[in-house]
């Protein structure tokens, strides 16, 4: 659907840096316990209007519980959740201006696609004569007009996903929750649908909160990502910040591939030098952190930032090693380079030329290096 794009350059959308912006949702010291198990641990979080907010984490990290508290299916054990400044703790799910798209889609099997979408509208204060038009709008939004009379079991998985989305958007909620919305789709369809989701989110101006364990999905769709573990927020930032400037080894490792080297940092001029192994040169690393002399730390390097050479380059952070493994992915190749002390450095090269012979091969002696700005220094 080609939409007329606004001619003026849109102002960068970042309400979370604006101290005057009022959040749509606000978690204030929220804790949720199930018996002895703490699912959410004293959590503070603001989510703003029109955001596409992703909750990312391994299973059991509390992301689904957080979402179910927003929908009203779980109550916080401690703390308050505000929606537009109102405490919604006591509001039952059917009275909240929040709708949810379920992981299983949860379509009503005995109702047609049309009736599924109309279900919520019939229970709202929308006048009866306006419901058909709204349902048609929703069907058009997800391109399901032709299937209005079908039952859920008569359409494909991708189509069910669209119906579930249309049904949850029909009441124009202030907040839409998406629980692993694309989990059941195959990879190709999932990628297409990610862009459609973003388009629909922009078109409707609804605030989306998505729960996912797929980091690529979160990176693609989200305005901000919250990485969770054990009921706590580890880091909340925009996708580029969370990828390029993770605040912990956990986050660096959870999003994308990374080589982590442990060592001790000392400041030399405006750069840290990290000595990490006998007989290996110290790693030079630019960092905004303030570390004590000889403080133990981690250096994290993304494979695509590591260059691989046949001859020793004249540069910083040069290490010599041998290729022990090659992962060929078509568009790029990942090399595992083992140094003399056993440390493995991952390096990634784009295969920009159409050549089936590889530039480097197994057991080849190579040099790897990265610049001082490319490595991330992390406190222990």
């Amino acid at each position, binding site marked *: 659907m080609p939409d007329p794009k606004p001619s003026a350059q849109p102002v960068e959308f970042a309400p979370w840096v604006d101290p005057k912006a009022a959040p749509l949702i606000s978690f204030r010291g929220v804790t949720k316990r199930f018996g002895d198990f703490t699912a959410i641990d004293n959590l503070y979080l603001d989510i703003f209007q029109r955001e596409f907010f992703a909750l990312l984490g391994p299973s059991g990290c509390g992301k689904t519980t957080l979402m179910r508290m927003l929908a009203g299916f779980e109550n916080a054990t401690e703390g308050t959740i505000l929606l537009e400044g109102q405490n919604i703790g006591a509001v*039952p799910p059917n009275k909240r201006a929040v709708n*949810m798209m*379920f992981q299983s889609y949860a379509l009503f099997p005995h109702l047609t696609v049309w009736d599924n979408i109309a279900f919520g509208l019939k229970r709202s204060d929308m006048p009866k004569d306006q419901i058909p038009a709204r349902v048609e709008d929703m069907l058009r939004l997800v391109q399901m007009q032709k299937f209005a009379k079908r039952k859920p*079991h008569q359409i494909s998985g991708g189509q069910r996903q669209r119906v579930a989305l249309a049904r*949850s958007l029909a009441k124009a909620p202030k907040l839409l929750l998406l629980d692993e919305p694309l989990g059941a789709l195959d990879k190709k369809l999932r990628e297409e649908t990610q862009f459609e989701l973003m388009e629909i989110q922009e078109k409707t101006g609804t605030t989306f909160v998505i729960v996912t364990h797929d980091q690529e999905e979160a990176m693609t769709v989200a305005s901000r990502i919250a990485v969770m573990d054990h009921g706590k927020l580890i880091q909340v930032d925009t996708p580029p910040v969370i990828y390029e400037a993770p605040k912990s080894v956990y986050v660096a490792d959870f999003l994308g591939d990374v080589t982590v080297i442990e060592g001790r940092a000392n400041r030399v001029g405006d750069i840290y030098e990290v000595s990490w192994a006998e007989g290996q040169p110290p790693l030079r690393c630019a960092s905004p952190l303030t570390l004590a002399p000889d403080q133990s730390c981690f250096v994290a390097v993304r494979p695509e930032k590591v260059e691989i050479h046949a001859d020793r380059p004249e540069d910083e952070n040069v290490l010599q090693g041998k290729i022990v493994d090659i992962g060929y992915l078509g568009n790029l190749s990942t090399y595992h380079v083992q140094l003399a002390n056993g440390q493995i450095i991952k390096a990634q090269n784009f295969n920009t030329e159409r050549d089936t012979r590889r530039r480097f091969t197994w057991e080849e002696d190579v040099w790897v290096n990265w610049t001082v700005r490319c490595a991330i220094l992390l406190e222990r």
Partner: protein
Amino acid sequence: MKRFSFFSAVSLTLGFAFLYVPMLILIIFSFNESKLVTVWAGFSTKWYVSLLHNEAFLDAAWVTLRVAVFSSTIATVLGTMAAYVLVRQGRFAGRTLFSGMIYAPLVMPEVITGLSLLLLFIAVGVDRGIFTIVLAHTTFSMCYVSVVVSSRLATFDRSVEEAALDLGAEPFDAFRSVTLPIIAPAVISGWLLAFTLSLDDLVIASFTAGPSSTTLPIKIFSSVRLGVSPEINALSTLMIGIVTVGVISVSIMTKRSATRQARDERAAIQG
């Protein structure tokens, strides 16, 4: 098609003979001309005709039918409610005890159930009649309904109900407009089960029936003690016929809807 081996043919014949020879004999003798049940004297339908004029049997049939319809309907409502709470409410104090207690009447000897109900009715001072049989049948068939419905609810995707709540339905509305239509087949089979149980119950009905409320099984049992009449054969044949037609039509209905669903799903995959 695979040919039957001698062994399978024999075992199949034996098994089915064991099940159906008694009924077959009953059906054959219901068309017997003779008044003697065990002596064949030619084909006749006269016992069916005389059955139609036997006021006592017709009354008993009418009582049985009313009792079965009322008790199975009440049992279905109560059993579904109990199953819903036990499956849905999550953990609450005494849940295990309650779910165990709801199934206890399944294994309770009928004589004990009947006797305890009789004592209760006497203690409360209720006159025994159709009303007390309905109550008694509801009591023992309700747990069967509850078993059938709760096994369906256990496999039911809870998020469908949550979706209804999420879209603004009140809890009862969500149950009525989403849960109930989905579990309807289980509720209907629960009702049918309760209906058949009530239809052929003799023990509990004999404890709780009054003089004016003889059910068909009681009537048959008491007449047989005075000697088996061909009329009873005819009546039993009719009951077998009704049950057979019911079972066959239910299974055809189930099979048809399953094939339809499979065909629709194939169509959906093909686009």
